[in-house]
């Protein structure tokens, strides 16, 4: 019996007609989702473009990939269904059986074996997939279109298997008995060697495969992506050889993730973040933590969900939902009916549980794409995020039982201040004094950025320093001490703004900001910094910055004077990255207008 409540849909439901055509029947997998027909439509769209006859691979080849992946994941449902489909496409059952036993011995060409090896590695051991695997495919004459098609096919296979583990559809035919696996399904996510996480860095490298430029102005799916993120993340760009897939994906993501009628948007993003953290995909964690901030969740709260949702302020019900999602993401076929009943006991409807399954499956899909295509990170990771805290408790037990390397928490960030901090926490005033001397400049600039007035900033600095000493015992080393100290200063300044009810600077939306276009088009001198003395330049800059409306002043100061990263500024101010970028560009352009008389060609010479 399937896990979730069933309803009957009209057989004329268009996706059913499409499935009848491609499978020869309507798989129970889709019927099991009838309580939310929009999910079925979303998958029909994806499947339609990914599994159809492609440039590189035939339908049979793609079905074979799905069959082999389903078998490796011990997904009886899809093994049975794929065998039936392969038969309907003309592949004799005996061939399918040989593929399942060991595809290396099934008389395939070496290229085809290499392809299946790659697909299995990506599906089961994705942490170790790298450029070398792509090069291996290229050595078998697979071009970039083929590689993209292969990765998409794998991603969809994993999506379907995680999904089927969560809903357990009844088999459509007599279940095929799986031979003992030749490739073991992983017990959980393979533990990364320590320090691997530190390699998450902003890269400027291109994806593994060729990309083409699709303008957000003319390519509708990118317009939506651009609106959400403020740029086109690499994981989308990496798929640019297949605009048709991007179109289908944008519709599916829209239907699965960007709806709020069953689970709320925030709940969904939390699931996405937690599931991505569980499969150790820093890229997706970073991207979606970023989005969570845009939904009014405080940065700390969003980050906490990635780090360990049990320690977050979520309700017990929501925590149990994330527990379920984590288990499904990491060990899909250990999910049982009891897990579903547990969620029902918390009051979740079957529709909500189904959506949670869909989002977890989607996080697996995106994970495969990002890893398989080598989309370099382009989001900043949350503070204190460590992939290792997110193991569900049972997973840790399991690791212990099996004598595997139990991931240990490495929350501590290496911090040059650590020694002094420990002393200061023990009450040593001398140590504290040394710490604040080290960081007094950053503290002052943070205050000036927000308050925009030297006297008031100096006054606030005193408050901030006293307050930091009173709270220093609460500092747990989740971030660098300097970051913590500056954030206390910032909060002190923000509180002062609130006290004088001057919050226009922070709360004002970004509407109307897009239209700002500069008017000054006079060229600037070649070495503008040599036109004035250092002191003069400093005074010009300070005057121009203080002349900006405060919301622009704050952003420009944090980004260009303090030199925090864009993501960090957005985080500190609780803005989305796109909103921040709009503000930053506008602030810089305003500064440019106000400095132009002193640096542009014709007046520059007269200015001194």
């Amino acid at each position, binding site marked *: 019996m399937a896990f979730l409540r069933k309803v009957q849909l009209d057989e004329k439901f268009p996706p059913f007609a499409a499935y009848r055509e491609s499978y020869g029947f309507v798989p129970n997998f889709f019927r099991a989702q009838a309580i939310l027909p929009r999910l079925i439509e979303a998958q029909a769209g994806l499947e339609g473009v990914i599994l159809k006859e492609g440039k590189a691979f035939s339908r049979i080849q793609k079905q074979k990939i799905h069959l082999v992946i389903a078998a490796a994941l011990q997904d009886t449902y899809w093994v049975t269904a794929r065998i039936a489909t392969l038969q309907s496409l003309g592949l004799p059952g005996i061939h399918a059986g040989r593929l399942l036993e060991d595809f290396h011995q099934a008389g395939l060409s070496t290229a085809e074996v290499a392809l299946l090896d790659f697909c299995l590695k990506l599906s089961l051991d994705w942490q170790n997939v790298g450029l070398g695997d792509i090069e291996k495919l290229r050595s078998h004459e697979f071009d970039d279109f083929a590689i993209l098609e292969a990765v998409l096919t794998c991603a969809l296979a994993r999506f379907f298997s995680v999904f089927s583990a969560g809903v357990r559809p009844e088999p459509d035919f007599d279940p095929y008995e799986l031979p003992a696996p030749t490739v073991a399904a992983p017990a959980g996510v393979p533990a990364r060697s320590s320090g691997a996480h530190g390699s998450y860095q902003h890269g400027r490298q291109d994806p593994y495969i060729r990309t083409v430029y699709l303008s957000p102005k003319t390519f509708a799916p990118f317009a939506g992506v651009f609106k959400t993120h403020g740029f086109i993340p690499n994981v989308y760009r990496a798929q640019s050889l297949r605009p048709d897939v991007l179109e289908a994906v944008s519709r599916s993501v829209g239907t699965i993730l960007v709806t709020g009628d069953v689970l709320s948007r925030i709940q969904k993003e939390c699931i996405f973040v937690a599931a991505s953290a569980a499969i150790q995909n820093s890229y997706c964690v970073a991207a979606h933590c970023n989005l969570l901030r845009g939904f009014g969740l405080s940065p700390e709260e969003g980050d906490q969900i990635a780090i360990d949702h049990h320690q977050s302020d979520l309700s017990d019900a929501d925590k149990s939902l994330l527990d379920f999602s984590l288990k499904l993401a990491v060990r899909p076929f250990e999910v049982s009916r009891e897990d579903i009943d547990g969620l029902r006991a918390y009051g979740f409807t079957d529709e909500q549980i189904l959506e949670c399954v869909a989002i977890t499956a989607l996080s697996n899909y995106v994970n495969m794409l990002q890893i398989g295509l080598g989309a370099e990170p382009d989001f900043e990771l949350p503070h204190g995020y460590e992939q290792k805290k997110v193991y569900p408790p049972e997973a840790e037990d399991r690791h212990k039982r099996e004598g595997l390397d139990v991931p240990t928490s490495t929350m501590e960030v290496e911090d040059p201040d650590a020694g002094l901090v420990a002393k200061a926490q023990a009450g040593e*005033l001398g140590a504290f004094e040394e710490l604040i001397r080290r960081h007094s400049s950053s503290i002052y600039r943070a205050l000036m950025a927000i308050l925009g007035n030297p006297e008031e900033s100096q006054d606030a600095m005193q408050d901030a320093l006293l307050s930091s000493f009173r709270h220093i015992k609460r500092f747990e080393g989740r971030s660098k001490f300097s970051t913590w100290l500056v954030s206390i200063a910032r909060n002190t300044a923000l509180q002062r703004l609130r006290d004088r009810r001057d919050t226009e600077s922070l709360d004002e939306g970004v509407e109307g900001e897009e239209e700002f276009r500069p008017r000054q088009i006079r060229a600037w001198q070649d070495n503008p910094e040599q036109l004035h003395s250092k002191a003069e330049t400093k005074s010009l800059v300070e005057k121009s910055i203080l002349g900006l409306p405060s919301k622009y002043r704050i952003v420009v100061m944090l980004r260009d*004077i303090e030199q925090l990263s864009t993501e960090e500024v957005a985080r500190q101010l609780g803005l989305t990255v796109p909103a921040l970028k709009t503000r930053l*560009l506008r602030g810089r352009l305003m500064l440019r207008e106000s400095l132009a008389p002193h*640096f542009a060609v014709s007046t520059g010479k007269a200015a001194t």
Partner: protein
Amino acid sequence: MITCDEFFAEFGDYLENRIPHEVRQELEEHLSQCRACHVLYDSTLKTVKIVTDSSSFELPASVSDRIIDRVMAKLNKEQS
């Protein structure tokens, strides 16, 4: 070639060097042919550099010392 509007849409990211290779090529082709955008780009880049290098809003050491001394005096008094 892309239009000035298209250039401007990517301008912020271009300044931040957050542009993938293939887009950068398009933008640079535009820059090489459009004087107005080139001036805008050049002067904005110079603005950012001037601002970043200006050592603006540095707290004079004397002021910093005064504040820290005051804070430490207060804490010392509280502890005794």
